[in-house]
């Protein structure tokens, strides 16, 4: 509940009339006492705490450099959006409760106990203004991986019932229905069939055995279904034995984004179990950044042992295919600017893959300023795009991104993340962007050299 006052300052610069920093809505789930919330937040934050994260907690020198790498701080100019400040209550709790000098801090009450009001105040900082893009690590003189710390703080916030409603709702839906955006197994099957008919491409659904298990993100299933046809077309042409499966298709992992590790594990295990069941040697992840993070880099840790199959982002798969010559592409005579999804490139290590594919397409790639692994985030990842109260700042972040891409002067914009693409589409409409973001996968599928043409 908030009081309305006429003393608020109007933001006359904004396209739409609004007040400067209207009171932020704080969302709360469950019925818990304040003490219980704080207790749960701290316990679940500390659950996965180890040497690495403790080192990061200790190493900060409060230089504030991280602010200059953060797209949210750059868009808002608000010091509260300084990346390291986003984990301040948890840093405080670490020093008071868990660090090597905890007894000292506690005895002299040098670090006060974190309150539920602080946690509520930090909800916006941990969820609305951080996409876990990790650009702040690049600028940090101590090389602190702040995104990992924000991820851990989210573990605490989820269990304390302090997640923004929209993110909580889609996460709960994903847990219950198998997909955050209503792409239930039946919906998925129907849409795969529809795409098969529409594009006259043979679809493989629920095969008992296959070398390749293909996953899709709910954004693709619901908003960009052509991705399914594009993937099928490519795999068919390459002669792969592949399948979609209704018991393991959803690549997104909102358990990870919202901070529920238990749900994260269940969501990953659905895919892992399915891949094992059909004897898959390879699981192909769709154009989705955080899905890559969830399965490629965190999947085995959820499983508790190394994964018995290989995991590739679709751009890596395509890069290998053009490298080995098993995929021939027509030349696209265009200049292209590529938007790197943070979780695939900087934090995932697959920065060169889309570039190899673009090279095979014969386009002239124009790198944007601070591109590649140093790319500026579009502002929609990490669940931010689901949170409506984050929209205003998200559009500002995207405004900077549009300018950066515009400076390349490229004719065509391409990315390999459907969540980024969705953010570009939404923001493009809002900000009257004169370009459109394209999918690398679809660009490849549209320019395959068919068997007869080889």
């Amino acid at each position, binding site marked *: 509940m908030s009081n309305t006052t006429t003393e608020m300052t109007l933001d006359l610069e904004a396209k739409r009339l609004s007040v400067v920093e209207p009171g932020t809505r704080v969302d709360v789930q469950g019925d818990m006492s304040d003490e219980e919330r704080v207790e749960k937040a701290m316990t679940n934050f500390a659950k996965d705490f*180890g040497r690495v994260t403790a080192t990061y907690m200790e190493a900060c020198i409060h230089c504030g450099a991280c602010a200059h790498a953060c797209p949210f701080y750059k868009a808002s100019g608000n010091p509260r959006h300084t990346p390291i400040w986003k984990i301040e209550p948890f840093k405080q709790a670490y020093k008071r409760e868990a660090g090597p000098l905890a007894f000292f801090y506690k005895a002299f009450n040098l670090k006060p106990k974190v309150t539920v009001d602080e946690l509520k105040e930090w909800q916006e900082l941990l969820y609305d203004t951080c996409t876990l893009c990790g650009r702040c690590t690049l600028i940090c003189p101590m090389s602190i991986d702040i995104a990992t710390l924000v991820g851990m703080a989210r573990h605490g916030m989820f269990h304390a019932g302090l997640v923004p409603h929209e993110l909580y709702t889609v996460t709960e839906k994903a847990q219950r229905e198998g997909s955050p955006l209503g792409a239930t197994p039946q919906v998925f099957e129907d849409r795969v069939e529809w795409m098969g008919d529409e594009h006259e491409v043979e679809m493989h659904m629920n095969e008992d055995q296959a070398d390749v298990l293909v996953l899709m993100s709910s954004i693709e299933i619901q908003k960009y279904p052509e991705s399914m046809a594009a993937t099928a077309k490519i795999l068919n042409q390459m002669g792969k034995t592949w399948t979609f499966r209704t018991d393991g298709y959803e690549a997104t992992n909102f358990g990870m984004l919202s901070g529920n590790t238990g749900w994260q594990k269940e969501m990953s295990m659905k895919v892992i179990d399915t891949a094992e069941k059909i004897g898959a040697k390879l699981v192909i992840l769709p154009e989705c950044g955080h899905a890559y993070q969830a399965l490629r880099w965190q999947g085995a840790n959820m499983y508790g042992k190394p994964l018995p199959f290989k995991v590739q982002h679709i751009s890596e798969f395509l890069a290998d295919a053009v490298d080995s010559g098993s995929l021939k592409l027509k030349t696209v005579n265009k200049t292209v600017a590529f938007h790197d999804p943070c979780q695939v490139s900087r934090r995932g290590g697959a920065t060169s893959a889309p570039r190899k594919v673009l090279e095979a397409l014969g386009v002239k790639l124009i790198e944007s300023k601070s591109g590649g692994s140093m790319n500026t985030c579009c502002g929609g990842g990490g669940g931010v795009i689901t949170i409506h109260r984050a929209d205003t700042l998200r559009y500002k972040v995207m405004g900077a991104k549009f300018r950066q891409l515009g400076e390349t002067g490229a004719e065509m914009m391409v990315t390999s993340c459907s969540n980024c693409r969705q953010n570009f589409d939404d923001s493009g409409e809002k900000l009257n962007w004169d370009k459109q973001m394209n999918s690398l996968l679809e660009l490849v599928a549209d320019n395959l050299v068919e068997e007869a043409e080889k």
Partner: protein
Amino acid sequence: MTLLDFARGPAMQIAIIIFVVGIVWRLVGVWGLRQKKDLSEARSKGAWVGGLKGLFAHAWPYKPFVPSVGTQYIVGYVIHLGLFIVLFFGTPHMLFFADIVGFTWWTLPGGVITFVAVITTVALFIALAKRLTNPVQRLISNFDDYATWFVTTLPFVTGLATNANLWPDYETGLAIHLLSVWLLLIYFPFGKLMHSFWFVVSRYTTGSRFARRGGMA
């Protein structure tokens, strides 16, 4: 016992004990924590090479960040290098250490050391002014940041005063300078001066973690 005797005797011993035990305690307190093994399939072997690269990569900001933080880095280097030069290449300091380690080494002329100390002190005041006026730094600063600044600056100020013979009594002045250094040593393990160690651990950790992914850190 004069103040100088106290500074050269028990005060020094207590300070060194707290300094050493405190550092060990804090390092072991963190290194003793468990760390789950990363079970994901590494993209490339030899993550340690990435760790070593990380040590150097973060010694200077990546190109896109130079306009925003380059000056801050330069001020930081002036402070760190100044501290190093004055501490190890000032003749009185070298002689002090030589008594402990049993050998001497080359030092810089007194005038050069004074110049370096003045520049370092100026840089420390610039850093403080920035911390007090920059909205980001002001927000994220706490007691430790100001205490660290104080215990680091004090030995420079007292040292310059001793060197210039500004104290009413030289011996008392020298004692105050020594005590200010012991204060620095005593505070060292409790605050962010520990970054002298953490910078290596943190940079190596991130460098190696992301090298095994093939990512950038």
